[in-house]
């Protein structure tokens, strides 16, 4: 269904403006637009029908993320499709409602209820259900569904305005509990990898869109009587931007290569490479795009700033550039041979 998905999703969203002019993104308008997507079933894509999903594979999921991302407003869609559906599929738990938010910290669940604390959980203020991972046996974990009304939320906003919250549950009642055959710490690691994957895929959409906007700008805009693109200094910047974008594209591509669903994600050098390269590219592409755009780029009336703010925020979520780079270096240093490690032979 390549291309078609994107067209439908973009159509659904383009009918629903998400900003108050000059004020930036409006959370309520954003919620209405996203509700429309959810009502049309798009948040179930990638999850098997027997788990209340709509079926489809990772390629379909990414098409939806790209469609949402090319618009550039804050959106929980990537996390719903990649984190929530990824965990639900892995655990075999059916999607209970519209916005399922996974708490990416180890909880505890017993007869008294579910307890957990997590800092800055993306989109937690929108949650219609919370999912908490707690240890069960040595190689098992429980997944508890909790109504968000039981949570203490301390909300905040990222640079582009996306809501997040510190989430505290103190012996909250679980709506349902499922035992999963994975150790709880591994399962939390898996959730964080899903988060990392989500940010990598989102970054790719934003980098692509910034490149498009920049190429349009240098083609159309004239200075000193010629289009910007005719200037050598501009060309050097455009090529540097394209190189950064291409390298990030390659890095993210190799991380998802061979995966058929989000649940296939593995925390390893390929994913860390994607995050490091995407973060470097974010810094350089943002720098170059703004340099080429001039002051118009930082205004709210022009689209570029949405992608800029998103990229700057994402690069520090689910692991920073530095943390991922250190992870790579440590893994390579521990490997018997660097070259074999680079080829993923060992």
């Amino acid at each position, binding site marked *: 269904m390549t291309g078609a998905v994107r067209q439908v999703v973009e159509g659904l969203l383009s009918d629903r403006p998400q900003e108050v002019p*000059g*004020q*930036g993104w409006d959370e309520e308008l954003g919620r209405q637009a996203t509700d429309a997507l959810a009502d049309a079933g798009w948040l179930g894509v990638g999850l098997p029908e027997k788990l209340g999903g709509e079926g489809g594979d990772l390629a379909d999921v990414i098409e939806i993320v790209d469609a949402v991302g090319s618009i550039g407003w804050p959106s929980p869609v990537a996390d719903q499709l990649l984190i929530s559906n990824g965990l639900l599929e892995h655990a075999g738990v059916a999607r209970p409602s519209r916005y399922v938010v996974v708490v990416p910290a180890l909880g505890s669940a017993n007869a008294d209820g579910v307890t957990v604390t997590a800092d*800055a959980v993306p989109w937690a203020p929108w949650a219609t259900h919370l999912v908490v991972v707690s240890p069960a046996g040595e190689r098992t974990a429980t997944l508890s569904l909790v109504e968000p009304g039981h949570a203490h939320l301390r909300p*905040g*906003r*990222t*640079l582009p305005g996306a809501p997040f919250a510190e989430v505290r549950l103190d012996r909250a009642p679980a709506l349902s509990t499922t035992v999963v055959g994975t150790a709880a710490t591994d399962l939390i690691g898996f959730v964080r990898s899903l988060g990392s994957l989500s940010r990598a895929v989102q970054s790719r959409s934003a980098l692509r869109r910034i490149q498009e906007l920049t190429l349009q700008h240098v083609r159309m*805009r*004239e*200075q*000193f009587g010629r289009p910007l693109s005719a200037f050598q*200094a501009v060309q050097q*910047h455009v090529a540097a931007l394209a190189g950064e974008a291409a390298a990030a594209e390659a890095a993210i591509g190799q991380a998802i290569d061979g995966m058929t669903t989000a649940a296939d994600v593995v925390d390893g050098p390929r994913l860390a490479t994607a995050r490091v390269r995407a973060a470097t590219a974010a*810094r350089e592409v*943002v*720098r170059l795009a*703004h*340099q080429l755009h*001039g*002051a118009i*780029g*930082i*205004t*709210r*009336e022009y689209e570029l*700033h949405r992608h*800029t*703010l998103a990229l*700057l925020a994402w690069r*520090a979520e689910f692991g*920073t*550039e*530095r943390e991922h780079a250190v992870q790579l270096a440590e893994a390579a240093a521990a490997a018997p041979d660097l070259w074999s490690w680079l080829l993923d032979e060992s």
Partner: protein
Amino acid sequence: MDDRKLRAEVRAFAVRTMAALGLRPRCDSWMVSHSPEFSRALAARGWVGMTMPSEYGGHDRSFLERYVVNEELLALGAPVAAHWFADRQVGPSVLRHGTEEQRRRYLPGIAAAERYFAIGMSEADSGSDLAAVRTRATEVPGGWRLSGAKIWTSHAHRAHSILVLARTDPPAERRHTGLSQFLVDLDLDGVEVRPIATMDGEHHFNEVVFHDVLLGEDALLGARGRGWEQVTAELAYERSGPERFLSTMPLLRALMREADCAGPAVGSLLAELRSVRVLSYQVAQMLDQGRVPTVRSALVKDLGTQLERRVVEVACSLAPVRPDPHSADELPRLLGEALLHNPDRTLRGGTNEILRGIVARDLVGSSAGRLVP
């Protein structure tokens, strides 16, 4: 020069006055932190219009003394945006090019921080190409009729006047001829100020539209047709000051207090800070000698704004906090504020590419091959 006493006075004043006004240190304070109360208190101490003659309300101080005062204010992130542009560019221009009447009319207000100026140079379609200016001043009986629009005018909605570059005559072989500068009060009939919201969520930029605004003859600043040369001379003042490398100092100070900074990344920033400071200080010395060091100023701005950007990147990498411009805590707030301005540091006052063109053409054209001194 022993400037310790002056530094200590400014420092004590700024800390005390900011506390009294409930104003916090901010990055890029000279662009975003606008407080007429602070500016007027500063002026009352004699620290605005410092280099202007006392007969016009100034203080007959040197550019080096002015440099010291501004360094201290920026290092503290003090709210200096209200008077900044009038003090930095308009004062020296009016003093140099203005009539006696214009001087008497504008300079005392600038020195008292009672009259704020916006700068009307860029236009929506001109970018860095000022010769493409389309705002037009037409001679009419008794003065001029001004029509057109200026963009990216900082704080025009809070300023009293604007210094406008407009075309008065058709360009000759050299495209830069035929431009002139005008002093325009913003409360005149036909002046419209439209806000431009930026991604930091603040309103400091505006579009200023002139709908056939009628100006008196005395609105022309300097010689008709010499606007380009006058603007170029201004740039040496605009590009070389401590605001080109100290905009992120409040962030770096907070970072040093709260994070583990004893590594090579911060060391490299500190070496650059010390080096660029020397270059900027040298420009102030040259201004005191009556020179207009255009190329050296361009270098300061190029190096300094790159340094500011690196400060923010290093802080993002080392600070154990999430950037949040709305935080009540200092480090996340300063980090968020500074990060939101990182894309425009190297655009302000001429993109760095334009600056490099100025430097290169000067170097390649000179026979010595050495940097201007």
